[in-house]
């Protein structure tokens, strides 16, 4: 698993865009979005080989895309986008979605200015730390009985909003209205169900977090106003996914597809790219299970939102936190796109990439439609995050980056940074930290990530999305 010495050749292909010409079994070229600075980092790990491998998938159209935050994943690169033509034997690959199905980000905007939070920041952070389950076996916000889980998996966020854990605006400003259609609860194993039963409303660990942020730069005043953002405003960003349930769904269906590929006549260069035609029993089963897990992911972030509002109400006397948007960055969706002059139904895999719909898109709620879809880009812990907006014509089937993107392994980060020192450093910069594991904190140190400012600038130059606002952290709750 050391980086391959044979790095595919990149040819400049426009502003912040590079091309890998098709060779071998590649059915389409690779197209990598990255600035001159970022592309040097991309050459250092196996991400480009993974872009090449994805280009061999049956039914893939246009290109195997990589976003500016691309880095070495498993099977697919993290930051990869690939679409397959359903009517042309196109496949769906659980590895093209990732283990954490519907891992995503939501941003809540408050009526408060940062100055109003200065005095009560510590109390609010303590309240969030106590109320938001993090780490291992720490419980859940929404306790479910076994018979309730199937309904939540079918109904997603609306299931919780109907029970008082949210408001109507939480649904209209969530991708798909908070519920992805076609969920097939019967396609989930007992293990998936048992892993999901007691985690609705839990942050998890790894790179997941909850941050209090302040808007510190407005790049597009008109879009910011439409999104309800203003300079100095306090926001809350939640980054989490479908927890153990989603991981189990991916594992189960990779096993199933690995067994079936010979019979289905499908071959892939990496076993983690195991796949099956969308129009096959295995493909349909996965997509049904994936939709259920996606609904779990949205419900999980909704339950966390409920907990955050409770903490704001108890500490600051207001729970008026409006959902700006909630969007997944690990998902496969059936979408219509024009390819080579013809509208086709595609299975668009976004693995560590965010859907970025342009202005006027019918899937956007009426108040966001004139502006475009908010694209939420969390930075690394302690650095800036961004709100972008989808643009026309965009690229990569209306996709953009999903974060800063790692450059350094957890291993290297631990060698260079000590968790306690990092905590002191963050607090010296006015960022309050509450973490389930101080040692684990170091693995997410900012130096382990690319420069998020450069990543979003690259997205903008490449025409994938446009910057609206920059947010910096005031407090971090880490799993």
């Amino acid at each position, binding site marked *: *698993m050391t980086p391959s010495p044979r790095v595919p050749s990149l040819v400049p292909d426009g502003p912040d865009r590079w091309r890998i010409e098709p060779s071998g079994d590649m059915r389409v070229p690779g197209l990598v979005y990255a600035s001159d600075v970022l592309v040097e980092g991309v050459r250092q790990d196996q991400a480009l080989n993974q872009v090449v491998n994805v280009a061999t998938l049956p039914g893939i159209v246009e290109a195997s895309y990589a976003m500016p935050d691309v880095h070495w994943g*498993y099977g697919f690169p993290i930051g990869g986008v690939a679409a397959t033509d359903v009517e042309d034997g196109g496949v769906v690959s659980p590895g093209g979605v990732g283990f954490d199905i519907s891992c995503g980000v939501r941003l809540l905007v408050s009526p408060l200015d940062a100055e109003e939070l200065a005095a009560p920041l510590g109390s609010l952070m303590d309240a969030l730390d106590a109320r938001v389950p993090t780490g*291992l076996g720490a419980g859940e916000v929404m306790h479910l009985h076994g018979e309730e889980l199937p309904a939540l998996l079918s109904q997603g966020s609306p299931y919780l909003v109907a029970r008082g854990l949210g408001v109507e605006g939480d649904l209209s400003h969530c991708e798909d209205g908070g519920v992805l259609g076609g969920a097939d609860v019967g396609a989930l194993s007992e293990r998936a169900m048992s892993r999901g039963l007691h985690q609705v409303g839990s942050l998890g660990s790894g790179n997941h977090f909850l941050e209090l942020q302040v808007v510190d730069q407005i790049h597009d005043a008109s879009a910011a106003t439409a999104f309800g953002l203003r300079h100095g405003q306090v926001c809350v960003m939640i980054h989490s996914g479908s927890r*153990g349930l989603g991981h189990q769904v991916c594992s189960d269906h990779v096993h199933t597809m690995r067994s079936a590929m010979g019979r289905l006549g499908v071959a892939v260069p990496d076993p*983690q790219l195991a796949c099956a035609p969308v129009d096959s029993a295995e493909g349909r089963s996965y997509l049904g299970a994936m939709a259920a897990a996606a609904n779990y992911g949205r419900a999980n972030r909704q339950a966390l939102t409920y907990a955050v509002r409770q903490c704001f109400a108890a500490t600051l006397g207001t729970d008026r936190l409006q959902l700006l948007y909630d969007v997944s960055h690990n998902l496969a969706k059936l979408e219509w796109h024009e390819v080579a002059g013809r509208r086709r139904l595609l299975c668009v895999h976004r693995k560590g990439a965010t859907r970025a719909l342009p202005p006027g898109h019918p899937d956007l709620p009426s108040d966001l439609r004139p502006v475009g879809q908010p694209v939420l880009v969390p930075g690394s812990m302690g650095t800036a995050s961004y709100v972008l907006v989808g643009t026309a014509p965009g690229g990569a089937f209306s996709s953009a980056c999903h974060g800063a993107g790692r450059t350094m392994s957890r291993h290297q980060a631990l060698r260079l940074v000590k968790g306690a020192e990092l905590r002191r450093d963050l607090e010296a910069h006015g960022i309050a930290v509450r973490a389930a594991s101080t040692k684990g904190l170091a693995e997410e140190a900012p130096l382990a990530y690319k420069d998020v400012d450069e990543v979003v600038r690259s997205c903008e130059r490449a025409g994938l999305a446009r910057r609206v606002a920059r947010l910096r952290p005031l407090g971090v709750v880490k799993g």
Partner: protein
Amino acid sequence: MDTRGHRLLPHTADAVIEAWGPDRPACLVEAMEALVDIFAEAGDAAVTRTLPLSAEAAASADVLVSLLEEVIYVTEVLGVVPVRFHLADTEDGGVAGDMEVVEAGQVELVGPVPKAVSYHGLDIAEHDGTWRCRVLVDV
């Protein structure tokens, strides 16, 4: 190098386990110990129970994945952390044994909790009398 052991190798986003031992069960046990090392330090936490551990006959890669998935499952659903593993080959080509566990609340969390096992770059084989494996786990 010791006849058995394990270590974690660099990977940009997740964690790669390398483990080795004089026979397949020893290599598999080392891999499971490495998995636990990613997230927990048990110190002198008391063992509270012993859970069965087995994998059906299959390719060694699938046996390895199955065992690591079992450790992830019991950690997450039962709220326990395995600290000692015992494993032997079975006559039909599988492995069977048990794992001693401590309660999750009794360990120090030192990193992200693994949630899945990937087949990307997975390798397990015997060379010159030593079984060796490499496997990437999602954290």
